[in-house]
């Protein structure tokens, strides 16, 4: 089963339930007392998920490690490598100096 099919399956199950409740094929007293809530529930769910996604992505963006140490260490190692390579007889292109 491809991911697309998995999503379509889950989606159609949810839509089926939603329509069943909406057309009162299934009785549920809460739904009967709050028809508006049921009607808008898919949109509410999408908005809530969107907020969740936004919060997660922003949190992860702000906590993304900056790897400053790794960058500083690399700069040192580049110098080290250049000295060592020159000793081994490697000729760096002249434009760099």
């Amino acid at each position, binding site marked *: 089963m*491809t*991911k697309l099919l998995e999503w379509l399956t*889950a989606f159609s199950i949810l839509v089926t339930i939603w329509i069943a409740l909406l057309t009162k094929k299934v009785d549920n007293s*809460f739904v009967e007392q709050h028809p508006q809530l049921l009607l808008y529930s898919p949109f509410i769910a999408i908005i809530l998920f969107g907020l969740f996604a936004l919060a997660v992505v922003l949190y992860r963006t702000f906590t993304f490690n900056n*790897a*400053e140490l790794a960058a500083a260490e690399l700069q040192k190692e*580049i110098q080290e*490598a250049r000295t060592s390579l020159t000793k*081994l*007889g490697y000729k760096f292109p002249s434009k760099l100096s």
Partner: protein
Amino acid sequence: MLAISKSFYSLILTWCCIFVLIFYVVYVLEESNSNETDLHFHKTLLMAEENNKYSILLPTYNEVENLPIVVWLINRHMTEAGHDFEIIVIDDGSPDGTLDAAKQLQKIYGENKIVLRPREKKLGLGTAYIHGLKHAKGNFIFIMDADLSHHPKFIPQFIEKQRERDYDLVSGSRYIGDGGVHGWDFKRKLISRGANFLTQLLLRPRASDLTGSFRLYKKHVLENLVGNCVSKGYVFQMEMIIRARQFGYTIGEVPITFVDRVYGESKLGGSEIFQFANALLYLFATT
């Protein structure tokens, strides 16, 4: 009031049950996919670890400044850790003399350590791997960028991880543990995290970093994957790991730091985002 809350709870409960059911079905399906690797797992465990050889594929294009440093660092870390290795440089006809630099390095480190597999012009990444693989003597293959964004100090950690559970592939991840990036502004980080979130949601790849290209593969696994991947450019890496999951290969992860290009320009434009979205949809519909 009590009646309302009761029916409300029953509604919520029903929905929860449905969600649990869906996730369970998906979980069972995925488990049944990955069971076939167990057999393979035991077979390869019998192989002697000491005879392992690691071929490091370095596709290059205009990396004359970075290549010697990368090679020097690889040599240092591999020698320290005592692993047998070779570096295969696949240069796509760089006009800046990368190949000459590689030839110099070959003189210093020897022809058994530095193997040159140049090509005439810039061709795809996938074909570069196929080209390099043809001559690889190792039973394990490393794939990494030659632009210093991937530090060779992580190579021994990949090897350790691989041995832990005889993983078919080990992927470096910027998103876990001590991993991270350097030289990215807020916008770039946001795009990266957003794209990653979307991919995790749609594809559930069981790997946290899909577009990173610092990875260790068993040779036959890479051969199989390369042959089955059709994408071009950097989304090729994403397809590789998604196909790996599809074929039921086991995936290990190592946190890595990604230091954006020290020399030369890094790119992330509209066309990269378009390529990414395209690949995501393609994989969503086909795997």
